[in-house]
């Protein structure tokens, strides 16, 4: 299967470790770059692609609202992955002996996902697309312009970080959205490096716009809506692979009505044990990050939904309990994630990796709605660790 070679979703994890001792090698055994502490990012250049790394993605999720209380969720992800030897360390590209054409390269392949949820009907549509690097899929290196077929994500204003996102799901749904950052860019991890495993090469640069004002149009079938709402965008750069002992991960991003945002990540080990690289990070109204380690938060499953098509059960009702930096040293907050529709699975027809990526509402202990979230659940259709 294509899947075997395209295990993409090595989600960048932001491990909290003692950064002072962290001295990773410059390259992986394959020759790809390894994220180095203290890297100085230069924008807009660093919003673009980094071909010296093996894996990279731009991951946008968001909630949209239209008139008549209509509510939607959307996801747009652009991945790039270099082949063995790839373009490691340099920008001179090994296109392989057959790849004489710059338009049909064989150094990288690009995968993309688009999904749209209509909350009122619970209808969830998605499409997956895989292309080689070339005329129909690529990401620029001097700034952000990613495209895959007729889907694209382009930074339209380098100063403000505003972007335009165009996506569609076959001919069933289409959107064109303007994204404007409401908070400065966040760099997760220690000293610019987010570690995700014990291996020193298993790390990423993890850059995020946690709150993007979103305005645009969304077409579903024959209906077109003027929509507004809020999005989250991750840009993660790495060359690393998942630890063979890890089965998968659960990830969530929360945007609270009080202006704070939260990113949480739970690494699941095959043996069921806790993984020290799990983490939770608060982003306050001004964009300052407070990270807590695996010991300082809990991720509890409170409900499971079995997907009718794949038969996979996803624990998509979650209770997060964490210390609240805004409420003093002993303040603890309880956050419940409740899916806006039970079945938001992407079947992985091309990548071979089914996963659940869905819009949720956030409830407090009194079940009051206090924000919106996206929840990602991977590795439930078979362990991912060791496959890549």
């Amino acid at each position, binding site marked *: 299967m294509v899947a*075997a070679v395209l295990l993409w979703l090595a989600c960048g994890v932001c491990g909290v470790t003692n950064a002072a001792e962290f001295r990773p090698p410059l390259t992986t055994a394959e020759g790809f770059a390894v994220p180095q502490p203290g890297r100085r990012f230069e924008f807009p250049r660093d919003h673009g692609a980094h071909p010296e790394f093996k894996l990279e993605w731009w991951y946008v999720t968001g909630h949209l609202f239209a008139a008549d209380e209509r509510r939607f969720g959307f996801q747009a992800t652009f991945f790039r992955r270099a082949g063995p030897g790839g373009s490691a360390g340099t920008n001179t590209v090994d296109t392989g002996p057959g790849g*004489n054409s710059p338009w*049909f390269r064989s150094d990288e392949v690009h995968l993309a996902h688009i999904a749209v949820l209509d909350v009122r009907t619970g209808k969830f549509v998605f499409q997956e697309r895989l*292309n*080689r690097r070339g005329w129909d899929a690529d990401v620029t290196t001097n700034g952000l312009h990613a495209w895959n077929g*007729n889907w694209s994500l382009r930074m339209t204003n380098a100063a403000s970080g505003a972007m335009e996102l165009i996506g569609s799901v076959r001919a069933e749904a289409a959107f064109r959205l303007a994204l404007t950052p409401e908070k400065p860019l966040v760099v997760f991890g220690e000293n610019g490096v987010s570690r995700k495993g014990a291996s020193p090469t298993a790390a990423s640069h993890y850059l995020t716009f946690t709150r993007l004002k979103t305005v645009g149009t969304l077409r579903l079938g024959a209906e077109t809506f003027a929509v507004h709402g809020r999005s989250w965008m991750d840009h993660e750069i790495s060359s690393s692979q998942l630890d063979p002992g890890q089965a998968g991960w659960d990830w969530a991003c929360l945007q609270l009505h009080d202006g704070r945002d939260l990113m949480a990540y739970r690494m699941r080990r095959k043996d069921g044990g806790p993984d020290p690289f799990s983490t939770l990070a608060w982003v306050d109204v001004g964009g300052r990050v407070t990270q807590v380690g695996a010991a300082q938060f809990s991720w509890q499953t409170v409900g499971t939904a079995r997907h009718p098509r794949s038969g996979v059960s996803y624990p998509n009702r979650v209770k997060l309990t964490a210390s609240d930096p805004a409420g003093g040293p002993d303040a603890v907050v309880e956050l419940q994630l409740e899916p806006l529709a039970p079945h938001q699975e992407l079947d992985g027809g091309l990548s071979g990796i089914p996963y659940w990526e869905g819009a949720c509402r956030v409830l407090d202990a009194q079940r009051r709605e206090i924000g919106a979230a996206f929840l990602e659940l991977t590795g439930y259709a078979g362990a991912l660790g060791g496959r890549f």
Partner: protein
Amino acid sequence: MSTTATASNRALAGLLLRRFTLRHWRSAPGQSALLVLILALGIAVFFSIRLANRAAVASFQNFTDLITRESDWIITAPAGLLRETILPELRERLGEQPVSIIPVLDTTASPPRRADFEEIGSRPTFQILGLDLVAVQNLASARSPDRSWFGQASGVDSFWRLLRSPRAVFVNAALAAREGLTVGSKLPLVINERVVELEVAGIIPQPPGDPAAPVTLLIMDLAALQPLAGKLGRLDRIEFLVEPGPDDAARRAHLREQLAAWGDGRWFVSSPADRRENAALMTRAFRMNLTILSLIALLVGVYLIFQALDGAVVRRREEIAILRSLGVEERAIQRAWLVEAALVGVVGGLLGALLGWAGAQFSVRFVGRTVNALYYATSVQSAHLDRAELAAALALAVAGSLVAGWVPARDAARTPPAQVLVRHAVAAPGRRVFRNGWLGLALLAAGALLAALPPWRFPGGRLPLAGYAAALCWIFGGGIVAAILLRPSARLWQPLGARWVSVKLAASQLVNPSGRHRLAVAGLLCAVAMTAGMATLVASFEATMQGWIERTFQADLYISSYGAQSASTQNRIAPATWRAVTNHPGVAGFNGVQACEILLNGQRTILASGNLDFLQRHTRMAWRQAPLSDDIFRPERNAALALASEAFTERFQLRRGDVVTVPTPAGPQRLTIAGVFSDYGNERGTLVVERGRWTEWFGDEYLSSVILVLRPGFAPESVRAELLGRHPGLNIFTNGHIRGEVLRVFRQTFAITYALELIGVVVAVLGLALTLVSVLLDRRNELTTLRALGLDWHEMARATAWEGSLVALCGVGGGLVVSVALGWLLIFVINQQTFGWTLSFRLPWAQLGALAALVVGAAAGVSYAVGWWGAALPADREE
């Protein structure tokens, strides 16, 4: 009419059928079988040609249909190839529209050489399709759960190894089974002029239920095929798939408009249906010609059914009279006869369809080969039974026999009851038509007028309809005139009767010939005239070709890619190779030829280039209109000039001095036609320009062939061997060999027309036998008398043999005369209007003599056999 009356009518019809029609069939099964067989043969020929034609046209496909669903639109360059740089442009222009853009490259390849000399066209041609193997997986229908492009090889990084392999190829499952290919097997092929060892990466994925890919289809990654095919940075076509969903029809239509507008002359837009139609159109004249030829046997067959039914009416006259006197209505009798005719039609039609279907399995190869040689690549190997064609053939059979049965049925119905009393009624009054000399002459004159009319032009081609009508007029008119001449020619034989009683008997029959005799003459004339006319055309063509070959093929060596086998193969010679070849010390001069299809005024034609000064120095061109100055041969002066083939000028109705604007990748170019030359290579026409101009326009130095003239002292054979040793992917012909090959390919193209004509002759001779059978049945009382007078069986058989031979002589004589006219018509009207080739007239005396001897001899033999049978007829046999 009341219900009872209808019921009784039905009962009567059934009774008539059983007691009247079928009884006769049972009593003379041989005769009925012969009749059915004649019709069946006619239908079989028609049906087999139709099926073969259909198969040849159906085999034209885009191949990508097999991988994706059928594309909505396809863009191709008006000349040459598309540049791949238009891909990002197209995506950008399309913006967010959900449209898949599928770039496609294709080329042809052949298995490597096995013997030193091989016939052109004797090796299989593989079609290699280059697709972006990663991108095609996004198309839903390309996904097959059990087999994917990348999943067939195993091992770490197999995906990347396949994606980066310059030689990975996917093959059809049937080819893999036949050649024992598995993943990793080597598949050596000649692509362009190089022997390339491809590596099997797997089987072409095929979703269950989809049609199987042709055995000759190979698929490679587009990026790997580009350098192999010598098409770096180029694409043959780009296909577009509009995402299905709301408003998809409107979005498709909109996309076509957008593509057309954005192209601005750089490309043109077509649909897969347009392309199939274009392929069908391209071969339309060729297929129509074959269909018309295939109808000859049927035409002769219809003649004979008419004759047989007419004879039966006469023989059963007494019975009819009895039925009439019993009160059976005229209409019921007429209906009974028509039912009989229809029965012959149905049985003959079904048998013919069966024979035709079997025959199609053979004829399809001939048709396919010709289409391959002249038009486009086909992979047709078998013809499928097509319901519409079957219905058409059966309808034709029934309609033909009903038409043939109409007049006899009317005569039968009108038989007055009193006839029964007349013991010696005129046995066969004969059709008045065949005694009307004026009608015959009028038809001949009408034919002459029709022959002067221009062809019918339709978009994409032209068809000599008036020419065919003229041929029909001459065949009918000639038949009538020859039938009338039967009597005077019989008189000529009468003096011989003094010495041989058999001649006397035969001549006495023919001095007062029956309608059946006349019909037999006309039928034989039709078959012989067509066959001899065709032979005249072929002989004239061959003579012309030989003269053309003598003049045109003057050089020493003719070099092409080993894969180049016909008009449809794309294999060419890379610049490094042809430079090495032409730098051989023995080379005194060379002509580097390139050609590609272009679209001119919506019609496909060929733009070629060569070293024009070479033409003047080393060949004697066969001019239709010679250039008025030497400018065309001087590279420094011929930039705006071109030479046109006769077919080109005929097709586009141009002549020397006219200006033609041709599309090129460098934009449209205005060219003045400096001269018109004879060319029998293709009917689509060729425009030739100086090679330097071509290179400038197309940015492409590959050559389709190289023609060498050697210095004195260098033997062509040894230079050939030396070059082949260095470049095994080349095909090199010496002068003598290429001349032979050209003639062989030419003859092969005409093989099927010969076969069709010969079947017509067989039908005509069978018809003569049937005629004589009827005649003898009519005369059985006379035969009894003759036996009583002491004539032995041999003499009686001989008398019939003479009778048959005289009829045959008349038919053959008339046929040969008409054939000269038909030959003229075929050469100067039909061929000229269909292909645009001027030929010189030559009569193939030996062939015509042999044909005449064969027909008369066969007629004599068949008649003798019938006579022998007739001599044994009992006198009182009821019929």
